[in-house]
């Protein structure tokens, strides 16, 4: 068996080496014909130098005709995803309160901590992040390929099916039918439905890319394309009936769970950043060649990092080692994206003051850099000893999923929805209020859990302290987390109300236009 193990570790190394070589070869042979002007492909003639703003009045006719194509799918997707965000964060907030006041809703099986926590994770992960993500892809793709998506009704139907299965799955969790597998708690049938819905949303996008007549396919589309191919496959493998059990199952579980972050939420958000940052600023990204490197190394390394969730566990060391090495290698794509996003934005920092969508996305992108470097570092054994099994990990997860992904999605929705609905945001001050709730909330949340988690971890490692200390010494930080979570939830209520307000306005627009035609 030792021989077999050696071979698998070698296999992994070999496959990665081949991947790196192919990437390097493609790069040097210039097979992709990338030049600095490729980055200009998102601008129409004469647009460089003039940033695009979210305001409807500044909308150019050629973009407008592409934006309103996806009106039905995008409004449906944004409205439902922000609804899941509100529901999901209320569940998360309640779970957080239970960690310092365990008797809150203590007599209801449906609202016990274990169920509410997985309800929160699935509602914000597969409701908010996923549906908002695909809605934005559906908005952005026609802009990237400069034409209508084929079979666009699949997008709408896919988002509908997605919501239906999610509702069923979340209800299943509350009623006690959790599958017991982290990140895949919803009953299997609901999850297969979501994989199918993902496939339905992906089909028009993939077809549009194959038939598009543009000279150069912009980097954002690479990320979208890959993410939409990966998600249904990942989700089906993750949910496959028990071909695995015991330790093999734990490995497959965490391989899936980290890929859901790395190969689904992350590429969509990076892709959005690659489009909207240069678009608002009015200048192409800093180095287009670097985006090539960033894209392929993300795919190569991120797909293997998941098992660092089992460091120190009863799993073969080679698998953990592969994951730790890959986690460190992740610094390459992270730095590539960081240089591109930050160097583009930093030359025009004053725009952050005037454009809140840009502020959300640039800060989101900065949090991507921070949370990724943090993730790479604490996959190392020395730090993992302390942080593993503690609230620190929860803080890190929120820095990634909220600080990075959600911030980018917030910014993108604030930028895109007025264009799609042809209606400006009715209460601009609410956007600012949401921004400050979100940024202060996430900072309080992550700082509380990082300090609390380290105290908890040190107490658990110190045999002279009873286990009790790891609980009692972190109580103050649990309250800090609830404060941060409460602020974020408040921001989400504002965000949701604002979206409803904009849509009601857009409806009355449409009705008004109908009357004029009569």
């Amino acid at each position: 068996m030792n021989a077999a193990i050696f071979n698998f570790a070698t296999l992994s190394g070999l496959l990665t080496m081949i991947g790196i070589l192919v990437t390097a070869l493609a790069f040097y042979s210039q097979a992709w014909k990338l030049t600095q002007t490729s980055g200009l492909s998102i601008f129409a003639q004469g647009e460089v130098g003039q940033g695009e703003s979210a305001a409807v009045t500044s909308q150019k006719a050629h973009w407008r005709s592409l934006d309103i194509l996806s009106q039905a799918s995008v409004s449906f997707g944004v409205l439902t995803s922000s609804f899941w965000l509100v529901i999901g964060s209320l569940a998360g907030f309640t779970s957080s309160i239970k960690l310092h006041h365990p008797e809150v809703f203590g007599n209801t099986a449906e609202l016990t901590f274990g169920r509410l926590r997985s309800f929160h994770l699935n509602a914000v992960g597969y409701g908010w992040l996923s549906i908002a993500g695909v809605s934005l892809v559906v908005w952005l793709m026609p802009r990237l390929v400069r034409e209508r998506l084929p079979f666009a009704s699949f997008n709408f139907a896919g988002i509908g099916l997605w919501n239906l299965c999610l509702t069923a799955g979340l209800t299943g969790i509350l009623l006690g039918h959790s599958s017991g597998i982290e990140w895949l708690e919803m009953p299997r049938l609901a999850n297969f439905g979501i994989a199918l819905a993902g496939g339905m949303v992906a089909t028009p996008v993939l077809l549009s890319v194959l038939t598009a007549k543009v000279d150069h396919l912009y980097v954002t589309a690479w990320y979208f394309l890959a993410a939409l191919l990966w998600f249904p496959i990942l989700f089906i493998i993750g949910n496959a009936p028990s071909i695995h059990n015991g330790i093999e199952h734990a490995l497959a579980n965490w391989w899936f769970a980290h890929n859901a972050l790395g190969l689904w939420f992350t590429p969509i958000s990076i892709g959005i950043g690659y489009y909207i940052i240069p678009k608002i600023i009015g200048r192409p990204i800093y180095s287009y060649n670097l985006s090539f490197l960033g894209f392929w190394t993300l795919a190569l390394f991120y797909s293997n990092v998941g098992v660092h969730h089992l460091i120190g566990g009863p799993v073969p060391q080679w698998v953990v080692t592969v994951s730790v090495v890959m986690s460190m290698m992740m610094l390459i794509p992270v730095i590539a994206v960081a240089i591109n996003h930050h160097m583009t934005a930093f030359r025009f920092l004053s725009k952050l003051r005037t454009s809140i969508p840009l502020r959300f996305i640039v800060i989101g992108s900065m949090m991507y850099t921070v949370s990724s470097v943090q993730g790479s570092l604490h996959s190392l054994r020395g730090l993992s000893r302390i942080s593993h099994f503690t609230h620190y990990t929860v803080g890190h997860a929120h820095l990634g999923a909220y600080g990075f992904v959600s911030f980018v999605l917030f910014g993108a929705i604030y930028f895109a929805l007025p264009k799609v609905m042809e209606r400006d945001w009715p209460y601009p001050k609410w956007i600012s209020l949401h921004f400050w709730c979100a940024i202060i909330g996430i900072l309080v949340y992550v700082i509380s859990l990082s300090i609390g988690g380290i105290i908890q971890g040190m107490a658990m490692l110190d045999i002279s302290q009873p286990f009790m200390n790891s609980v009692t010494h972190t109580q103050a930080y649990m309250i800090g987390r609830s404060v941060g979570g409460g602020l974020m939830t408040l921001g989400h209520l504002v965000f949701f109300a604002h979206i409803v307000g904009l849509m009601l306005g857009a409806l009355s627009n449409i009705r008004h236009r109908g009357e004029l035609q009569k």
Partner: protein
Amino acid sequence: MTRLSIMLGALLILLSSSVVLVVAPYFAYVWPEAQGRNHELSEVQQRGREVYISMGCVYCHSQQPRNPGYGPDTARGWGYQPSAQDYAGQYPHQLGTSRTGPDLYNIGDRNPSIQWNLIHLYDPRLVVPWSIMPSFRFLFTEKDQPGPEDVVLDLKNIGVHPPRHVVATQDALALMAYLKSLQQKELPAHE
């Protein structure tokens, strides 16, 4: 060219990562049948495991003591680090990634008292004042006249006098049976 290479490249990379991390372990662990150290769960223990899963115990309790190089798990009495083989047959796995509460890998060895564990399940703060575990009172019923088969909580011993008798439901008892089955497997005779 560019478009196809993105699609094919993306698929190939996902394929190779799933071969290494999902498919390979499947072949790396083919346990000889005779060596199986996994004790099959009885029907009631299995039901208890389902209650454990349905209540989401795994979000605060791991089942994987680490070796002393990683932390004093063994010194805390949580057992020795098991081998991968000790988990054979468990589906879904419940290794866990959080220790808001203590590890439960050997709770059946460590605290075999059904009464204590039932009271702790009913209201953890009756026996562990600093605990932040949820109380699972909904896994109990109250009766004036418990039957001979009923398991009644012995609350008087700890100075609590509820107006009616608190009786454990079948789910609570099944959960206890499962917790009791969580014991450190014997070390293999020769390895």
